[in-house]
């Protein structure tokens, strides 16, 4: 009769089975201890794996936007710096014309101040960062401002042509001395202003587009991130500097020159105001970009925490599980050895 029975093969199979299970488990736990992530994400999370995938992808995206924001910030701070220098140039021009309006209007110093303002303005506006012209709008591979001093400059040709068309002789002609203050003021208002504030600006002066560079600065926020050379500040400064440069080098009479100086004072003042306005615009964008970066950095921190919550493994728990398993396996080995010796055959001598 058989009451309880254990078959020899069941005994050794059970031991072999549990040993192989424990060894497989040990490999997984070992991996978890090394990486501090669950060994098989899919098996651990199941359908929630999509969350972990989404988090990982969003993290990458946020990091890449934070990086690209650094580029935008550097562009904006360079812009800010350039705008500051342009304000300085305008200020120097204002000082020169103010002197001219009150003192000796015929001096070449005023003309040189106009020329210098024009040159520094051109070089500032044509500055580039990273191979892109800063003030070109979206047309960043073309110099935004044509050099007025260059041979065959269309802007200079247009100005000269307008003078001749109005008075019948060039400004260098001795007859120019007879031009009255009213006449020259009228010339500036009706002939010179359209060349800068009207269609002439884009035809002769600027290659920049009105449209500015648009950039994504956070997951769902885009902003214009550059300043175009087609702002009122630039146009008016160019106008003031050109008028000084041209009319003070001609043969205009003292009265006319004084009128010009007074007129240019007004225009330069407006240019400085407009320039300050542009500077504050750039500052606002800079602020937005850095705010967006800060927000995203906070988000990155949160996301990283979520990812750890989802797929992380407590290192102490992992270590203690590995230790447990190792001692279990050791016990199992010891037992197996003992049990295999435990046979009646050994006693049947």
């Amino acid at each position, binding site marked *: 009769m058989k009451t309880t*029975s254990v078959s020899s*093969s069941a005994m050794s199979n059970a031991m072999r089975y549990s040993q192989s299970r424990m060894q497989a488990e040990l490999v997984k736990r070992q991996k978890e201890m090394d990486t501090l992530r669950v060994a098989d994400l*899919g098996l651990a999370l199941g359908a929630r794996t999509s969350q972990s995938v989404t988090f990982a992808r969003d993290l*990458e995206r946020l990091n890449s936007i934070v990086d690209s924001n650094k580029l935008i910030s550097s562009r904006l701070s360079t812009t800010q710096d350039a705008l500051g220098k342009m304000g300085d140039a305008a200020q120097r021009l204002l000082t020169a014309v103010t002197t001219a309006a009150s003192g000796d209007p015929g001096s070449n110093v005023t003309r040189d101040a106009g020329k210098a303002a024009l040159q520094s303005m051109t070089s500032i506006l044509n500055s580039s960062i*990273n191979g892109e012209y800063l003030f070109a709008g979206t*047309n960043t591979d073309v110099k935004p401002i044509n050099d007025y001093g260059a041979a065959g400059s269309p802007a200079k040709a247009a100005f000269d042509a307008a003078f001749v068309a109005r008075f019948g002789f060039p400004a260098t002609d001795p007859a120019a001395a007879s031009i009255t203050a009213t006449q020259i003021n009228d010339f500036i208002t009706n002939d010179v202003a359209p060349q800068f504030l009207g269609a002439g600006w884009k035809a002769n002066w600027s290659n920049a587009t009105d449209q500015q560079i648009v950039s994504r600065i956070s997951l769902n926020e885009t902003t214009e991130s550059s300043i175009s050379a087609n702002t009122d500040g630039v146009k008016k400064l160019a106008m003031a500097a050109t008028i000084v440069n041209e009319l003070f080098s001609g043969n205009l009479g003292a009265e006319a020159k004084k009128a010009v100086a007074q007129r240019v004072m007004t225009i330069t003042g407006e240019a400085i105001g407009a320039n300050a306005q542009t500077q504050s615009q750039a500052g606002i964008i800079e602020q937005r970009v850095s705010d967006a970066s800060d927000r995203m950095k906070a988000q990155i921190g949160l996301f990283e925490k979520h990812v750890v919550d989802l797929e992380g493994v407590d290192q102490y728990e992992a270590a203690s599980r590995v230790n447990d398993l190792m001692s279990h396996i050791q016990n199992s080995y010891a037992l197996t050895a003992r049990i295999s010796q435990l046979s009646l055959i050994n006693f049947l001598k």
Partner: protein
Amino acid sequence: MSLSSALNIAQSSLKATSRQTSIVSRNVSDGSNPDYSRRSAMLVYTDPGVSVVKIRREANDLLFRQNLSALSAWSGQGALAKGMDKLELQVNGVDNASSASTAIGNLQKALQLYATTPSNQNLGSSVVEAARQVVRSLNDGTKAIQDFRTQTDGEITTAVNDINDLLKQFEVANKAVVSGTRSGGDVSDALDNRDAILKKISEYVPISTYTRGDNDMVITTGDGTTLFETIPRSVTFTPSAGYAPGAVGGQIYIDNVPLKTTGVTDAPGKLAGMLQLRDNVTVTMQSQLDEIARGLVTAFSESATGQPTLAGLFTWSGGPAVPPAGTLVDGIAGTIKINPAVDPSAGGNPVLLRDGGINGAVYRTNPNAAGSGASYADRLIAYGEKLTQPMAFDPAAGITANSSLVSYAASSIGWFEGVRQQASTLADTKEALAQRTGEALSNATGVNVDTEMSLMLDLEHTYQASAKILTTVNQMLDTLLSAVR
């Protein structure tokens, strides 16, 4: 009673003991054979003092049936879980590294970089390269899935051949049992053999059996189709030479009845498991890849007023037309490719991606004249946004119909891992059950060597005693004869 009858009894005892010893030795020698059932000797007394040994085979029908069904569940589930592990590695890669979702994430990053510095043509080329990774992931995924289906189809063919062979072997074994039983001989070995074949058959399909007169056995599948009755019934399957997305595979017929499969994650036998892999899991995965590919072609398409919307960065075999919205297009993930017009390695110009105009100048959206407007980023930003805007997906592919392309790609991984997790958990429990029932069956019918050894000691004693009786009777007879002499 006489001395001669004592001699006879001792003789028959010796005979019985040696017969029993041979059984013990057989038990010990087959102790580690899992298909062997322990034999025991029963002494039947015919004439007074004369014993005949009858052999009894330990059997436990209930445990054996439990073990059969557990084996079949485990082998089916194991095949399913292993297949899914293989698919995961082949389609999504280690840690999803080669998945479409990861590749699209990289494309988003490349787009963001390019949008920040649109004048840098190298960044444009890197967007095209990132797009090429997406295409490669989709194309390779499609190929892996279809190869997997073809392989599984081949494995089904092998399995069907195996099961037909096993049924033929079963016929022979069953005949041996029936004829042995009729002639009243010892059929233990034939029964062991038949049970071993049954275990093998149950790995392929869940079976139930019943025994008729003369130990004749009938096998039916779990859902009642006859697999064996006197003669084996044929299991037939027509393999396909290769699989394309959307192609439907052949059925397995048992006795001309098609084998049924249920669900995605639970397989009741190897044949069903392989059919489910070939027809359910892989087909859904493929349609999800197809939907991702269709989403990409649509998201990067170009439109202009008065012009048809045409494929942009990504195009496909049906290009330049854009596939119809919200409808699954079979196999588009296998034919999606980079538009040669923007591919620098095919002589294309990646700048078209920034300015528009892949399908001709009418589609240009950069407001500046051609060759200028190098920092125009609106279009690139719009592409990035389209990837995260909700779009309509075909519900036939098994995931939420309305989501953004990137979250659809992530959900696709989630869907698969969900299925894999269930299959794997079920495989673990079913393995444990098969192991446990196997152990219980082995405990009930298997051999314990120690028991056999102690039996042998008993037999040794009996044998010694009988031999002693023989010599004693011999001495007594000798004494008697010498007195007579």
